[in-house]
């Protein structure tokens, strides 16, 4: 692994790549600081800018946004009790009380220290575990790939607490959108209604920009005012930064929880954030301090979400199944650059893969340094009025949607999906399932047909191949389990 990382450092350490890592880190930190504007939206906006870039530089810039976004997301959680990103929500539980007690600097130091440690561990795990998982993926046949695709959608749907059915519906909608265009098996035009534009299919880029960026702008306009209601920023980070090491058990436990959740496709850093917080409270000898400014209450969620992000790239790179929204967008970028995720990527492009891992490591350290130095500046944008911010975001997003294939139709697709995303989010339909369905649609359908061809149209192939049966069983269990548990609990109450 170290030898491969050395190759990676050589590839990632070129001035151009370092520049793009730095750009991604700055953007990620900036966007992470903005409540409501997650790193995912920034990645979606910037995808079109990566078209003309080298694949490694493009992936590093996008991944650095995601990594740095998690760093920045905690800042407003602590200072304003407003999570910069959903994955930093639990950080506010103890970070904000610390700020109220005049210990905002300490809280931000704890957050940065925990994020740096967990980010580095996460990247090391990504580098160490990706290849074995990728090799295991080589033994998978079409039936297993079909099952994995379905599992990805099932996990995300099941993780949408209380909205599993809605998640499945959105997944089916995403798959339906992926059917538009030439059929991948026969080349037959489907759902094109005579339109040449639709024959090429509906692209990931306008859909992603619509669902994340345009939807976000709509919410911001409705909200009005400024992003930040407070507006004063203060704090030196060092006391907390070093203080992180006083809680090694919480740090290790939370990092492990985040890393494990990241590997499971679709669960994401938000779940890791809350789970690690609960686990830290459980093992604490003084759990009553939680919620009142306990340092462990800041370390746990921040360590978990920062170790979760790098490991969420493992299923994306090795199996083509994104571990979360950021990984889904990274997967879009990988596909756009003509690369196919999977074991072959590691064999045919080792410099790219290990350059990506090494670049992430550099990005994590860079994010911590920038975090310490520049947070007060970044936070200034939270006092810019939404009246100013909203039109700028619309212009940048839709210019990006147009630039992707220089098609005005893409702009209207982005707007349409922005409206769909707005309605979906208001009614708690998880839009990530739609994106996942769209991304995985081609893989799922192609694998489905290939498996049927191999079996002579025998549908039992999905159940007679052990691995496929296990994965599909897991997918069904994930979907059915919450409802079953609820029913049992209801019966118990009766």
């Amino acid at each position, binding site marked *: 692994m170290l030898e491969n990382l050395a190759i990676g450092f050589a590839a990632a350490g070129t001035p151009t790549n370092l520049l793009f890592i730095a750009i991604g880190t700055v953007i990620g930190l900036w966007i992470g600081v903005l409540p409501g504007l997650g790193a995912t939206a920034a990645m979606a906006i910037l995808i079109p800018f990566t078209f*003309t870039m080298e694949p490694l530089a493009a992936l590093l810039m996008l991944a650095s946004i995601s990594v740095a976004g998690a760093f920045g997301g905690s800042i407003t959680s602590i200072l304003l009790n407003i999570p910069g990103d959903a994955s930093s929500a639990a950080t506010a539980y103890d970070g904000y009380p610390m700020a109220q007690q005049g210990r905002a600097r300490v809280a931000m130091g704890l957050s940065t220290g925990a994020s740096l440690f967990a980010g580095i561990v996460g990247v090391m795990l990504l580098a160490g575990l990706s290849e074995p998982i990728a090799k295991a993926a080589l033994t998978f046949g079409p039936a297993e790939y079909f099952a994995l695709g379905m599992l990805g959608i099932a996990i995300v749907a099941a993780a949408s607490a209380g909205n599993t059915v809605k998640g*499945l519906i959105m997944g089916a909608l995403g798959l*339906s959108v992926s*059917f538009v265009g030439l059929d991948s098996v026969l080349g037959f035009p489907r759902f094109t209604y005579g339109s040449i534009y639709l024959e090429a299919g509906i692209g990931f880029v306008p859909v992603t920009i619509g669902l994340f960026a345009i939807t976000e702008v709509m919410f911001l*306009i409705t909200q*009005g005012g400024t992003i930040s209601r407070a507006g004063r920023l203060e704090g030196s980070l060092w006391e907390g930064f070093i203080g992180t090491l006083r809680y090694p058990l919480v740090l290790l436990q939370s990092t492990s929880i985040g890393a494990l959740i990241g590997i499971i496709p679709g669960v994401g850093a938000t779940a890791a954030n809350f789970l690690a917080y609960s686990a830290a409270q459980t093992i604490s000898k003084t759990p009553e301090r939680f919620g009142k400014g306990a340092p462990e209450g800041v370390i746990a969620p921040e360590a978990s979400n920062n170790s979760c992000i790098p490991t969420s790239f493992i299923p994306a790179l090795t199996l083509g199944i994104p571990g979360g929204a950021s990984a889904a967008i990274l997967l879009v970028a990988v596909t756009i650059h003509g690369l196919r995720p999977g074991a072959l990527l590691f064999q045919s492009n080792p410099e790219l893969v290990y350059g990506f891992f090494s670049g992430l490591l550099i990005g994590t350290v860079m994010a911590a340094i920038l975090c310490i130095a520049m947070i007060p500046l970044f936070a200034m944008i939270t006092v810019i009025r939404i009246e100013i911010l909203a039109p700028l975001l619309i212009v940048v997003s839709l210019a990006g949607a*147009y630039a992707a294939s220089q098609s005005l139709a893409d*702009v209207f697709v982005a707007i349409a999906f922005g409206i769909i995303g707005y309605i979906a989010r208001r009614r708690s339909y998880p839009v990530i399932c739609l994106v996942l369905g769209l991304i995985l649609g081609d893989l799922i359908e192609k694998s489905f047909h290939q498996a049927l061809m191999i079996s002579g149209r025998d549908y039992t192939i999905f159940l007679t191949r052990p691995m496929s049966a296990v994965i599909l069983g897991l997918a069904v269990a994930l979907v059915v389990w919450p409802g079953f548990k609820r029913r049992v609990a209801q019966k118990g109450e009766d």
Partner: protein
Amino acid sequence: MVARGARAEVTIALGLAAVFAVVVGTALGYPRDARLFPVIIGTGGLVLSLALAILALMGRNVAAAGTTPDMASEEAGAGPARFALAVLAAPVFGLLLWLVGFWIATAVAVYAIPWLMGYRHRLKLLLLALGTIAAHVVTFPLLLKVPLPVGELGEWFLHAFVYAR
């Protein structure tokens, strides 16, 4: 009597059911291999959407489907005009993009949206519009070599007055 939240829930679920019905109905006219997967997924989506609509009519699952507290506070603070602006800003910008091109559409959006939201500093808005246009000129046509659309009217103008010469 169906509650307001449930009514919205039923409407959306039925809308989704209609989309899946179209998927199935259209796919049935395709060759066997091309229609197989869309029919399976469309039928699954149709069944789930109808089930969701029925559950909402029965008054179940609406709590899980409701808006989050953040959204509720947004709704409370936003009047119909602000809501309309949130929903229409991007589509109107898209229409302007098609009609008058990127540069004019951007200038209008950067000036008009803040104005409609109650921000009245004319000079600042003018500078912001010019700055946004300048940043996009540098980024797209100059750096990325991607020309941005000039719009139907812009095309007509160019053909009538520039190319004609």
